[in-house]
């Protein structure tokens, strides 16, 4: 790991590395018995998540992820499926962000994240291997619980079910100040939206001030057992109501994947989408449309878990580079 070089790959090398990586990903899933799907890129509605902004494509929106469409296929009996999807997120432009990128997204039946985390480790290894950089792949993977790593890095002891005020009170001053600042324009939002806002601001500030530094000392890391307000589309743990069955995978300080044991309760999912829309209004952004077709079919979703992996980032890592642009096949001028 960490052996990086400056500058972009030559064009033939870019074509070679994408071909090798795509073949490795597809080969892995075929070996595992998953079927490949390709769902529409222009949609009526996308998953409503904080700080993921779709790009308009009248009369719809460009997909920010293939998640809702793939779950509807699962509802209709697809069985385990994967997709290499083109996705779009407005105003995400930087060394490790691009408004258009590739998500490898897959679903397995059964309410268990562990097989998906094993898939991530296997795919990372196969892609490094296929691109001729096996020696630089992460040698170790560790699993850390959100509560534990928060406590060890910043000292806060959190259960995961605190409301905005209780969370603020539990945080060290530097983090509490960030949460208070984020809550200031939301005094008239309802408690669910304030809780979401507080936890989102906390997670962001904590990642920036503590977690990213901590991650750099570790090779592969799965962050598991998220606090309930950050459940997004994941189920809440039946035994511990403060925890959501969500995981994030990081390689050498770079987040590469995010997965859920999928929520199958349409009323709960609608409440979460509505809270995000309130949060968007606090930030002066328009509410996003709710996908009623998806929510209508959600009760039929079999117990399953899904995860999405940023392929552009993985290829950048495998190429020993630091910028997506160094390996991208984007030709510029578009």
């Amino acid at each position, binding site marked *: 790991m960490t052996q990086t070089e400056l500058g972009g790959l030559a064009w033939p090398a870019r074509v070679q590395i994408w071909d090798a990586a795509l073949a490795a990903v597809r080969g892995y899933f075929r070996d595992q018995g998953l079927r490949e799907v390709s769902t529409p890129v222009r949609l009526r509605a996308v998953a409503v998540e*904080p700080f993921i902004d779709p790009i308009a494509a009248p009369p719809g929106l460009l997909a920010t992820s293939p998640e809702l469409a793939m779950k509807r296929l699962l509802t209709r009996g697809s069985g385990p499926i994967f997709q290499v999807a083109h996705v779009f997120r407005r*105003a*995400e432009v930087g*060394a490790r962000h691009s408004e258009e990128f590739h998500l490898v997204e897959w679903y397995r039946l059964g309410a268990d994240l562990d097989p998906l985390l094993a898939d991530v480790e296997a795919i990372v290894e196969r892609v490094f291997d296929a691109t001729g950089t096996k020696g630089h792949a992460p040698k170790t993977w560790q699993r850390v619980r959100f509560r534990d790593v928060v406590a060890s890095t910043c000292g806060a002891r959190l259960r995961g079910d605190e409301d905005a005020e209780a969370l603020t009170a539990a945080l060290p001053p530097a983090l509490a100040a960030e949460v208070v600042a984020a809550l200031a324009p939301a005094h008239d939002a309802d408690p669910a939206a304030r809780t979401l806002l507080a936890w989102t601001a906390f997670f*962001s*500030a*904590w990642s*920036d001030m503590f*977690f990213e530094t901590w991650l750099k000392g570790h090779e592969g890391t799965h962050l598991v057992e998220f606090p309930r307000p950050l459940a997004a589309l994941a189920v809440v743990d039946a035994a511990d109501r403060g925890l959501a069955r969500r995981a994030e995978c990081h390689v050498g300080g770079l987040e590469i994947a995010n997965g859920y044991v999928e929520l199958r309760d349409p009323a709960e999912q609608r409440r979460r989408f509505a809270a995000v829309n309130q949060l968007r209004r606090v930030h*002066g952004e328009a509410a996003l449309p709710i996908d009623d077709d998806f929510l209508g079919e959600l009760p039929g979703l079999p117990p399953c878990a899904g995860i999405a992996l940023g392929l552009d980032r993985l290829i950048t890592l495998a190429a020993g580079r630091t910028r997506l642009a160094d390996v991208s096949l984007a030709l510029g001028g578009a």
Partner: protein
Amino acid sequence: MDVSELRKNAKVQLDGHPYVVVEFLFVKPGKGQGLYKCKLKNMITGAVLDRTWRSGEKFDPANVESRKMQYLFKDQNGFTFMDNESYEQVALADEIVGDDSAFLLDQISVDVLFYNDRPVGVTLPSHIVMTITECEPGVKGDTATNATKSATVETGHKIQVPLFIREGDKVKIDTRTGAYVERINT
């Protein structure tokens, strides 16, 4: 403007000063709000500072413009320059030109920075050639030692030059440091 427009080299107005973005990093820690982490350089003073914007915030673009101008003369109003395209003349106060006045040769072409249509700074070419008007006699053949002597150039400015330099020689000077670079053979 929306912060999503921020890029390296963007010109930003902060506390009434124009800044240029010299380093730019977009991050979304913990899937939270996007952060635009910038290192900014004050276009007038050169001072550098760090500033982070959150997605959704606005920034004020700095109304700055660099114009190629020619130095004409100095009088009680300061240093007068002429725009190479419009021939418009502008007088810059002594404190704006500052130490750069030592290198203002007649008709030298410079970049004048305008902020909100007011001239606020001068950028000289990084190297200029000036004539030595006064110095002690040259020491023939002594090109190897690091010894230097004081010499006066045509603007009246004094610089340190090697011992072999004579009156009438043309020398290249680095305007950023004021240091002698080399003798120009003519």
